[in-house]
């Protein structure tokens, strides 16, 4: 009888397991009731729940089902590039091509990545760990995961959850910083309507970008190449089936695998450590500084350009697409309901994705 009882998970439960269950339930609750990144938080939450069931061995090396998803999907670097393929097929670079100087805002918003990088070093993290924590400031989930798997796989659960949590909290984190760093007059700046972008330009963009970025930072190639391939699928107009698959079915499949694999890394032993709290704190610092840097850079650019940029679009330089751009639009419309900033903000928003991938490539090349 005792032997039989010992084969159940009940007697092997730990306090750590129960705490992780609560975290899992919280994620699932936030996803379902508050709509916080539900596509990721539901599978992540479920992954956390099942990996913290004793004796299931779902993450047992070489055998566990979730270990196989994690190993072949993340460690083999398959899932994040496939997510980028889908993102490329969903992204319209038109607003950025129409106003290329907004690319600089996407670069400026990477500043927070380096603030958090140094912050993490001061807190005692090693360089590869600091890189993984810093990249959270890029607000790009797949890039954060890709970098962390390369440099600090033991922090994967914490960095991935921090990145997606802060991405979903963009509408809460960014507005106070935007208000703090801009005047009412600046928030009301109206930007000229964007010129139409020809199909040829849109087709040339992914080809030129992959050449430029991958020549400068070859380590960014897996993400950048797939991102631009997805975009080429979308823009060339002759492979609609591939574009649709990349943007829908494939994206959905890899999102499921990504979510449950990330959740599965969050066992009580791996996650309930003081350093995880520091990861979350530095992630928030990174995010806040990235937002601030984008806004301040827009203000700085206004000193030189005749055509003024509304600094509210600078905050969209953090990648979180399209949430950050929407926040710029909402904030601008609050002060002038006739001010439409959404398309202007999409420029730095998608530029931020490219900037984060470049930053990640450098991290991997130098710290890997």
């Amino acid at each position: 009888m005792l032997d039989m009882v010992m084969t159940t998970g009940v007697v092997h439960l730990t306090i750590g397991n129960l705490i992780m269950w609560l975290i899992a339930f919280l994620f699932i609750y936030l996803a379902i009731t508050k709509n916080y990144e539900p596509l990721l938080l539901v599978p992540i939450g479920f992954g956390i729940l099942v990996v913290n069931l004793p004796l299931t061995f779902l993450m047992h090396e070489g055998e566990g089902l979730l270990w196989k998803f994690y190993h072949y999907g993340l460690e083999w670097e398959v899932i994040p590039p496939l997510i980028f393929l889908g993102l490329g097929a969903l992204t319209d670079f038109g607003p950025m091509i129409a106003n290329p100087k907004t690319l600089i805002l996407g670069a400026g918003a990477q500043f927070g990545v380096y603030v958090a990088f140094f912050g993490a070093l001061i807190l005692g993290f090693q360089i590869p760990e600091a890189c993984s924590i810093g990249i959270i400031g890029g607000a790009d989930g797949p890039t954060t995961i890709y970098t962390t798997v390369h440099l600090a796989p033991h922090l994967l659960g914490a960095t991935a959850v921090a990145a997606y949590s802060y991405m979903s909290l963009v509408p809460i984190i960014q507005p106070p910083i935007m208000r703090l760093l801009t005047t009412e007059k600046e928030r009301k700046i109206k930007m000229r309507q964007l010129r139409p972008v020809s199909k040829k330009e849109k087709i040339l963009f992914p080809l030129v970008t992959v050449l430029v970025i991958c020549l400068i930072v070859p380590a960014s190639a897996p993400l950048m190449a797939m991102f631009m391939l997805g975009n080429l699928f979308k823009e060339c107009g002759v492979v609609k089936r591939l574009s649709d698959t990349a943007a829908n079915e494939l994206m959905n499949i890899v999102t499921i695998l990504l979510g449950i694999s990330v959740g599965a890394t969050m066992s009580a032993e791996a996650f309930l450590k003081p350093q995880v709290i520091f990861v979350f704190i530095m992630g928030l610092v990174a995010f806040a500084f990235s937002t601030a840097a984008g806004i301040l850079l827009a203000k700085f650019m206004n000193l030189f350009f005749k055509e003024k940029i509304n600094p509210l679009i600078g905050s969209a330089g953090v990648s979180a697409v399209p949430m950050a751009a929407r926040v710029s639009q909402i904030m601008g419309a609050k002060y002038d309901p006739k001010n439409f900033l959404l398309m202007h903000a999409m420029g730095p928003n998608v530029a931020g994705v490219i900037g984060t991938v470049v930053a990640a490539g450098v991290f991997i090349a130098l710290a890997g």
Partner: protein
Amino acid sequence: MIDWNLAVKIFSFGLGAVFSSLAILIAAIYAFGKIVKVTEKKS
């Protein structure tokens, strides 16, 4: 022990790479935009 030299190198090269690659991209966008315009006018 943290290798601060490497950290500074990562920072300077990283931020430099982000800005320079996006700056080159801006130049490239302007360049191919002009080329496309010229070829469209000719045709």
